[in-house]
């Protein structure tokens, strides 16, 4: 595959407990596995996906206990390991009180003013 893509995720924690994944982060993994060249930009509330301190207890209803609670920070680490660059919008992180030191290592901050320059590096930009 020759097109380099930037995927943007902004909506966060929408159904991550039931899906045990973020659907867009998961899709990035699947696309990478299929050979796509892609990077990921976290915007809006999704900047929180990089927070190391996230802890999700498996849900239990009656006798039915969830086996795999989501691990969103872990999923970002796994993307980084697959050489997918993961950016985050620094203004959105600051607005939400998230410091760079709160985030998993390897996430790259980008300012809103620099988005056009970032987009220029990709054949296509998709906002989910």
């Amino acid at each position, binding site marked *: 595959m020759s097109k380099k893509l930037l995927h943007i995720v902004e909506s966060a*924690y*929408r*159904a*991550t*407990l*039931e*899906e*045990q*994944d973020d659907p867009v982060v*998961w899709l990035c*993994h*699947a696309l990478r*596995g299929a050979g796509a060249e892609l990077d990921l930009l976290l915007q809006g509330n999704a900047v929180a996906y990089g927070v190391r301190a996230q802890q999700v207890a498996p*849900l239990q*209803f*009656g*006798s*039915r206990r*969830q*086996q*795999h609670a989501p691990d969103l920070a872990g999923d970002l680490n796994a993307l980084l390991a697959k050489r997918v660059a993961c950016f985050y919008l620094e203004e959105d992180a600051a607005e939400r009180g998230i410091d760079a030191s709160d985030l998993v290592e390897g996430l790259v901050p980008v300012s809103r003013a620099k988005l056009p320059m970032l987009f220029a590096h990709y054949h296509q930009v998709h906002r989910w």
Partner: protein
Amino acid sequence: MTSQQTLTFALMDPPFESARSTTALRLIDLALRRGHHVNVFAYEGAVSLAFAGQKAHANAVHGRDPLEEDHPLTRDWIAALRDAAHERGLRLDWVNCGLCVDERGMEPSITGPRRGSPTDLARFIEESDNTLVIPTGD
């Protein structure tokens, strides 16, 4: 602990689309654990929550086969709540709005939830101690 009550929840969201579905089930679970009877009026997309046709799947990204992935299905969670209510001698009366079921083709449901109409919601509201509506988003 207060005396036994009947609480009604009205839901609108389908599974896998919003955090509201999971929070709703957490609330229903808590109400049952506190010894209350529970009515649920599933409206609009929420009629899909108990759809019997939901199927689990593998997760190739995490290298898990269907059994290992054990993907949550809201129909299983609702079945577990139904069984927990029964074990506690409590009533979980889950009504799916019939018109919403028809337009979405969401039949059959698992055993337990029944087909109904806004008349059921009217009766629930009237006869229960309190009602919480969990609206949908945009």
